[in-house]
């Protein structure tokens, strides 16, 4: 067992962990941060993406002991109280999630992408989230969500002003 001390979602935590314990296991099993999920065992899917000292990492690819002394932000620490992060808001606004399992990782990766490149092209977004798999959305609306967040077009409860779908033959693309 190794003692680690770190800050997770703003709270200081300290635990004795097995050296082999992954950061994602530490977050889920020791801290109950079950918003961060495990989707594969080969670091392909990105569902477990969190921020480690401000950069996105796949937390299945980091040992808990490597996070000693670091600051970790998970999906549960992204919103400021009840105010959603603009990327969270954009995902909701653009229907960028269905089952929602990939969503925590996808949002954390998108936040990091926009930090590096505040005005990405569609191609840059697609390449930027390439390490995160989604099986539900075909990525179409995830790309739109990242574009929407980048453009700062998300504000509050967007549906209040959303018009009813008009003519039945109209396209649903927004």
């Amino acid at each position, binding site marked *: 067992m190794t003692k680690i001390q770190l800050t997770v979602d703003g709270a200081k935590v300290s635990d004795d962990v097995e050296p082999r314990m992954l950061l994602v296991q530490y977050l889920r099993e020791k801290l109950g941060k079950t918003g961060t999920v495990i989707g594969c065992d*080969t670091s392909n899917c990105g569902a477990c993406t969190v921020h480690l000292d401000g950069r996105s990492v796949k937390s299945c690819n980091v040992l808990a002991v490597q996070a000693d002394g670091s600051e970790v932000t998970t999906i549960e620490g992204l919103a400021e109280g009840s105010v959603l992060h603009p990327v969270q808001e954009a*995902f909701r606004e653009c229907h960028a999630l*269905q089952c929602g399992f990939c969503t*925590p990782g996808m949002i954390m990766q998108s936040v990091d992408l926009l930090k590096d490149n505040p005005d990405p092209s569609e191609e840059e977004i697609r390449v930027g989230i*390439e390490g995160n798999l989604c099986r*539900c959305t*075909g990525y179409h609306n995830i790309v739109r969500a990242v574009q929407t967040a980048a453009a700062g077009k998300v504000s509050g409860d967007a549906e209040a002003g959303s018009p*009813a779908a008009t003519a039945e033959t109209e396209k649903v693309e927004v």
Partner: protein
Amino acid sequence: MTATQETSTEPAREIGRDRRRKEDQRLITGRTRWTDNITLPGMLHMAMVRSPFAHATITAIDTTEAAAAPNVVAVYTGKDLDESAGVLINAWPITPDQVTPAHPPLPTDRVSFAGEVVAVVVARSAAEARDAAELVDVDYEELPAALDLKEAAADTVLAHPDLGTNKSALWVFDSQEAGTGGDVEEAIAKARESGVVVEREFRQQRLIPAFMEPRSVVVDPTGEQMTMWSATQIPHIVRFALAATTGVPESKIRVIAPDVGGGFGGKLQVTPEEWMAWWVARQLMKPVKYTETRSESLMAAHHGRDQWQKITLAAEKDGTVTGLKVELLADLGSHVAIVGGGVPVLGAFMFNSIYKFPAYHFACQTVLTNKAWTDAYRGAGRPEATFAIERIMDELALELGREPLELREQNWIRHDEFPFTTVAGLEYDSGNYEEATRKAKESFGYDALRAEQQQRRESGDPVQLGIGISTFTEMCGLAPSRVLGSLDYGAGGWEHASVRMLATGKVEIVTGASAHGQGHETAFSQIVADRLGVPFEDVEVLHGDTQIASKGLDTYGSRSLVVGGEALVKATDKVIEKAKPIAAHLLEADVSDIEFSAGRFSVKGTDQGLAMAEVALATFAAHNLPDGVEPSLDSDATYDPINFNYPHGTHLCAMEVDTETGQVKMRKYTCVDDIGNVINPLIVAGQMHGGLAQGIAQALFEEAVYDDAGTLVSASFVDYLVPTAADLISFDVGHNSTPSLTNTLGTKGVGEAGTIASTPAVVNAVLDAIRQFGVTDITMPCTPERVWRAIQDGTAGAKDPTTGAAAAHFDPATDGAGQSNIADGTEGAGQ
């Protein structure tokens, strides 16, 4: 009440509105309830010991070392199981004489696919269970494995030697026998003389549903009812099957599907892992949990597709189709899973698609092999059918030198011919193929892209352009119970809903359709908000727990809205009818004078009225109700659909093919679908996008590949290529709506449409780009290597590739010759 007031109190119409989803708040903030999140006091963890062999005798299992490992509580093998472990059911024996191997949760003496569970280790932590699983010593004697589908169909090697054959069932539909059409052999014979016969063989490769949330199960045996949480699409069916096979009364079983991270058919199953968790928890009387790894999921959760399709199409020289004959081999894998052989049968009614074939014959032979068992994967039988018919319509067009869209139009059911009874015996209620196609062509820029294609061909551009078409239909809304009964399916196809009017004016609705990403909570709220005239926000949707949603048949087959939504409409209408006499009593009016509109009961010709919430509160208080009226507005309804419904659409795909490297790149994808009336256009668009991605993935990326020893080599996301964002483009999704006539809301299913339609559009486009090199087919997935090889072989290939390919599969005399220009019919990674 004045007309002006009435207008101002009219709530915004919810149906058709692009409401943002109610589900999302918890999902985007990580406030989720996945099964693997559940931790219970004293909970134990299971790890599975799986067979590395496709087919082997288990000669001995030594569990001593594992049992002695730290914090290991128990180790179980197949020999430890008793009757209370139950069995894994096949709910759809497709013929009375179907050959069905016994399917206990663990085998005792023989494994029949690589990945099959042979022992279970139970320990205090998941890590300790896994460590100890490594210590279980299993001795195997390897047996020859039945791996190749065609060889297995010939009984060359037996997947289960005790059964004496690999052939499980032969299911046949013939239009002449059924009285729905003519004799297909006659049509083919006539076409051979004076028309044209196109014969092709297509491969539906094996796919893996690859939902993002690995399967997980928790069983709590404490308390009067035993509870199972499972990442399943079918909590109600799991409950039934546990009761039917493990001896625990159904009333003592509670199954909960909490947040479920995708299914796509892949979680429509009863699994050894669930059954073992159930049994182990009962043995130890402690809560147990099992969560699979991704590799286990890819290896042992059921697979989909995996067919060989022999298609014979007869037509007149003018392009009018006269007959269609379909002969399938379908790989069941090692066992007949819950729907199993029923999946290809679901496709049986769809090969004729939107075309007016006067004669049709379908025969499907299901075959046992030593691979993971197959079952439903998004579309389940219908993508396979759509692929075959849309591929061969292109082949017919090529044969006749016709424009492929025009040839389709010549043969499809015209708008003014609905309702139309097809040669497969289904009555299509509505549709407009002309209009969907017109819109799709316009949005796609069909003529401009054809012109560019021509220009690239003429200039010898190394990057060629191909245009692919798929004018599909599907049957969805599973299903009329009588139809299921006639097909020997073990259950019905109804759905149940309850509406509960709470004292505070809130409304709880309970649906038996258990969602796993589809957005039921939002769409169902919209329906009820409109129907009852209550705010969208006041409606709460409950589902996925058999103790709350006590009746249901769950979510699959694009059924939730068209069957479950209709049950909801009927339950809601009962609430209104129950409220009317109470409202009349409170308003001191005659019930015949009560009108209900926009959430308000009013007395005809007066300004007197009561809101639904007021009536609900008065009913709760029950201080002043009419004599003999029960103090409840709550209502239930169980709805059995009268027919399937038939979404359709025109999908157009433009693919760029680099003829020097074989690289394929999607240029544009346009679809115009007819799914009837739309409840929530945002959700519908999402279903289309995701469906398209999965169909495109079959065409270009995905394949479950086994090596010569029967080991799944694509058993991780490194090798099983679920597409990434960089592999796909933004889609051009449109609609043309002709309301369904088979349900009140006029809706048609949408969950599977994109997947069913898109695969042939993509493959047709790739082929269209490179047919000039003599290429007639490419086995899916159309990888750059296969495309490059096809171009190379085609260029250097046979003099008359089209005829050669057509003859080769059917005539032993030309065995394989015509295959030369078909790229890599891979059956196994060794090739």
